[in-house]
């Protein structure tokens, strides 16, 4: 193999599994160390710089970082990254001095943001400090988009959302709430230099063709619309017997909200087998904890209505059969099942909808009704119209919307500066030695043996009575510290300098997880098989040195490296060094003020 090019910013980035897996590439180990040091404000700001909504995400993120966490490969459970983020948000002090300080010198450019959700707010956050005049339009009375309308208050208190939406709006954003945009042409005619569309995926799927659907319409609700109606306090009650159709996170929110609005017998009914449900495992767990049964392999057949009154639904029992990797739901032949219900919530997915975009403007849509976009720049076929969030590539999650918002903001800034949107600035990176003394490192190198800590919950008797009472209580600072110590500091990289190596083998002998092997070079497949422990996890790279004096090379399998620093500690010549790698995604204007300040 060729020697690894550690100058490529992506090499070490990939070693930081959590950060690499995060759509916004939040520097996770960096803020976890700050939490352990009780520097919650700084930990919050590292997050804020990267993902704009640490308090929201610390409660509601889909956590793509956690399945990626190296700790999960070394022992059973990953670090509770998401809940540590909340520790930073809950315990932060005054953050205003760390925020961009307005008023900002206007740069003469004016942009419109359609929709007030996480994608638009991210664009606003990134561009306002650069002097853009930012106009934000939303049909709701307050900002936040789906974070407000679809995430129930018992998971995300209003106060947390209001604060974080406020941080952005306070940057001098011109808000136009309660204003539905009905025509993109009108917006374009107003002479904005660029328009960003972050209108989400606002249309819930229906079962329009199912028999009885329209006879029972008063008691059949579309999940996301119903959640929004609850959030804005138009709906305060539901029947005692409730069926929730669907197996995603919206279904989990619907059933748990129903329990708080008078639903006593709430059942979730899904078509698929239980283990294939789309909802996050922890949300399923929380629903089960609130005495909500989940019935799998039931396909809706009809709404049963008698005398104009909804009585319940009929379901066909099926089983999953797999052919050529494709799933088919096949009837088991058992008699159909009737389930009683006073109300039915349909939470079977959501779709994009752009009735307000005139089709003769030159903005092209693809076969799925989504705008045709450049995947990196988020530029549409109208050069000054950009998309982000669920409206760009279909429904995903908050953190993806934020990541796309950052990218779109970079594009808008380049576009407005009359530069090519494809010629994007590099990420900000930095690599700093952590050595302080013979056995001393700037980071806390010993590896904690603790298992993952559980987040305490409020008493069910209390939370089911009050829709706004938050269920998760968050880690206490003490537990937060212990959980933070479980982090392996994967951003503190093992950096090898071959011309210093005297091949004493000390690193190979001391490495607790047998990651390092000195051997003769070969092709990757061959080399992987010849290591002390064969490197079978192909998703993890091999770090290969140039040829050493004896003709061998150093090969390190990154897979289960604990970043404990023992290789560097036992190295007599400092051929190994532990160096902290900071990677900050490219953002508009390349500001990484807080990160640079905190980490250099």
């Amino acid at each position: 193999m060729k020697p690894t090019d550690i100058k490529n910013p992506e090499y070490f980035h990939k070693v930081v599994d959590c950060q690499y897996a995060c759509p916004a590439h939040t520097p996770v180990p960096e803020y976890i160390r700050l939490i352990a040091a009780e520097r919650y404000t700084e930990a919050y700001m590292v997050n804020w710089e990267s993902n704009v909504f640490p308090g929201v995400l610390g409660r509601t993120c889909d956590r793509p970082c956690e399945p990626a966490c190296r700790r999960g490969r070394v022992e059973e459970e990953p670090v509770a990254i998401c809940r540590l983020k909340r520790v930073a948000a809950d315990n932060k002090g005054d953050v205003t001095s760390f925020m961009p300080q307005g008023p900002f010198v206007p740069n003469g450019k004016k942009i419109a943001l359609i929709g007030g959700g996480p994608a638009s707010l991210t664009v606003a956050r990134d561009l306002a400090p650069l002097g853009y005049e930012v106009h934000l339009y939303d049909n709701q009375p307050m900002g936040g988009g789906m974070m407000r309308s679809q995430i129930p208050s018992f998971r995300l208190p209003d106060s947390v959302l209001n604060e974080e939406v406020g941080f952005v709006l306070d940057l001098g954003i011109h808000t136009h709430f309660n204003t539905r945009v009905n025509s993109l042409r009108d917006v374009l005619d107003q002479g904005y230099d660029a328009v960003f569309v972050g209108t989400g995926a606002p249309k819930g799927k229906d079962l329009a063709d199912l028999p009885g659907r329209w006879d029972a319409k008063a008691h059949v609700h579309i999940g996301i619309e119903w959640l929004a109606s609850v959030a804005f306090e138009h709906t305060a009650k539901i029947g005692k017997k409730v069926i929730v159709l669907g197996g995603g996170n919206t279904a989990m929110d619907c059933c748990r909200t129903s329990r708080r609005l008078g639903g006593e017998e709430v059942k979730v009914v899904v078509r698929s087998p239980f283990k294939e449900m789309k909802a996050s495992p922890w949300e399923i767990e929380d629903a089960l904890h609130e005495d909500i049964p989940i019935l799998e392999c039931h396909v809706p057949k009809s709404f049963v209505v008698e005398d104009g009154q909804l009585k319940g639904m009929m379901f066909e029992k099926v089983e999953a059969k797999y052919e050529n990797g494709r799933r088919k739901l096949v009837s088991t032949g058992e008699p159909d099942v009737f389930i009683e219900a006073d109300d039915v919530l349909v939470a079977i997915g959501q779709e994009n909808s752009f009735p307000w975009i005139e089709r003769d403007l030159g903005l092209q849509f693809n076969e799925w009704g989504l705008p045709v976009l450049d995947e990196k720049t988020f530029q549409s076929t109208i050069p000054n119209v950009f998309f982000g969030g669920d409206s760009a590539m279909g429904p995903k999650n908050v953190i993806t919307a934020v990541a796309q918002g950052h990218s779109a903001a970079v594009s808008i800034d380049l576009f407005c500066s009359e530069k090519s949107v494809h010629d994007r600035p590099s990420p900000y990176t930095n690599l700093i030695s952590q050595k302080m003394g013979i056995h001393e490192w700037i980071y806390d190198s010993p590896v904690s043996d603790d298992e993952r800590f559980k987040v305490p919950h409020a008493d069910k008797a209390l939370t089911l009575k009050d829709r706004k009472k938050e269920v998760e209580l968050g880690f206490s600072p003490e537990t937060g510290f212990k959980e933070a110590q479980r982090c392996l500091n994967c951003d503190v990289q093992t950096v090898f300098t071959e011309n210093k190596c005297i091949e004493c083998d000390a690193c190979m002998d001391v490495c607790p997880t047998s990651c390092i092997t000195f051997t003769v070079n070969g092709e990757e497949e061959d080399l992987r098989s010849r290591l002390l422990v064969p490197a079978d996890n192909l998703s993890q790279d091999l770090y290969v040195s140039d040829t050493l004096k004896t003709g061998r090379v150093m090969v390190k399998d990154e897979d289960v490296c604990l970043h404990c620093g023992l290789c560097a500690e036992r190295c007599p010549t400092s051929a190994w060094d532990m160096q902290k790698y900071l990677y900050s995604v490219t953002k508009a204007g390349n500001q990484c003020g807080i990160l640079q300040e905190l980490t250099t």
Partner: protein
Amino acid sequence: MTYIKPKFRHPDLPKNAVGFTKTDYEGVISTLCAGCGHDSISGSIVQACYEMSIEPHRVAKLSGIGCSSKTPNYFLNNSHGFNSVHGRMPSVATGANMANRDLIYLGVSGDGDTASIGMGQFVHAIRRNLNMLYIVMNNGCYGLTKGQDSATADAGSVSKSGSVNPFEGIDLVGMALELGATFVARSFSGDKTQLVPLIKAALSHNGFALIDVLSPCVTFNNNVGSTKSYDYVRDHIEALAEIGYVPEKEEITVSYDSGSSVDVELHDGSSVQLHKLAEGWDPRDRQAAMSRLQQAKAEGEILTGLVYVDPDSKDLHEIIKSDKRPLNSLKEEDLCPGAGVLAMINDEFR
């Protein structure tokens, strides 16, 4: 600050025939200087015992005093151990071996512990062919007292402080051959591909097995002018043969042209396979070994590998015809067979 080795290990760590992973043969984290050759030797001992599937409780590790003699704490933590007085490891090993011949004896010593204060003990252990592996971690200096020349430092070798050693160095390999040792080898801590099979062969040998391992002292004897630095040893090393160890139950699958290779069957049925032999040398010929050693010395080479082995070696217990059972397991009725037996013995003298 870490003298703490994390408890996590590679989840796919393989297991040997007795169900142990390499971790089960490790010791505590070393407190020797970073990069010390001794740590590599400890690593090789761990590797060899793991690969031979030796149950750790069957090993007794013994040592004297010095950096080398600290190492038994860094390997085989589940084995028996005895850290003795300076230079007195051989007599403790002799006593232990006499009391329980069933254990595997692994002695670790240094150049000071062996060639200076312990010389008197060392030579007699060889002479008696005590069944043990005796590893000398040889760095040519007294590392624990800040690097003075030891008795194995070569004449002309320059110390870190710049002084030139005026005295002849003791060659432990040559001396062991002269004393009639039955397994004599030299190796280098930085060459595990050679050292690990040598340790395995030595553990299979019936009798006294010496491995003199050049083990650079990174702190006090790794300077230019030293003849025991990493660079000097690597530049002057001359391996007698490529070595492979074949356990008893495995068939020898690699075969080389006769004349260039030798298979030596050891006491326990395993064998050592030596390939690409140096010219004019046969590991079973003591005289040839001695002259090859002299030749290397004259040419300024450091000869490594299995220098000499006597596959028919008889150990101390066989020489003195002691009981086949470990003496410590003998019961009172074995040791005091009664008046009848005494009368029989007495009758022999009438």
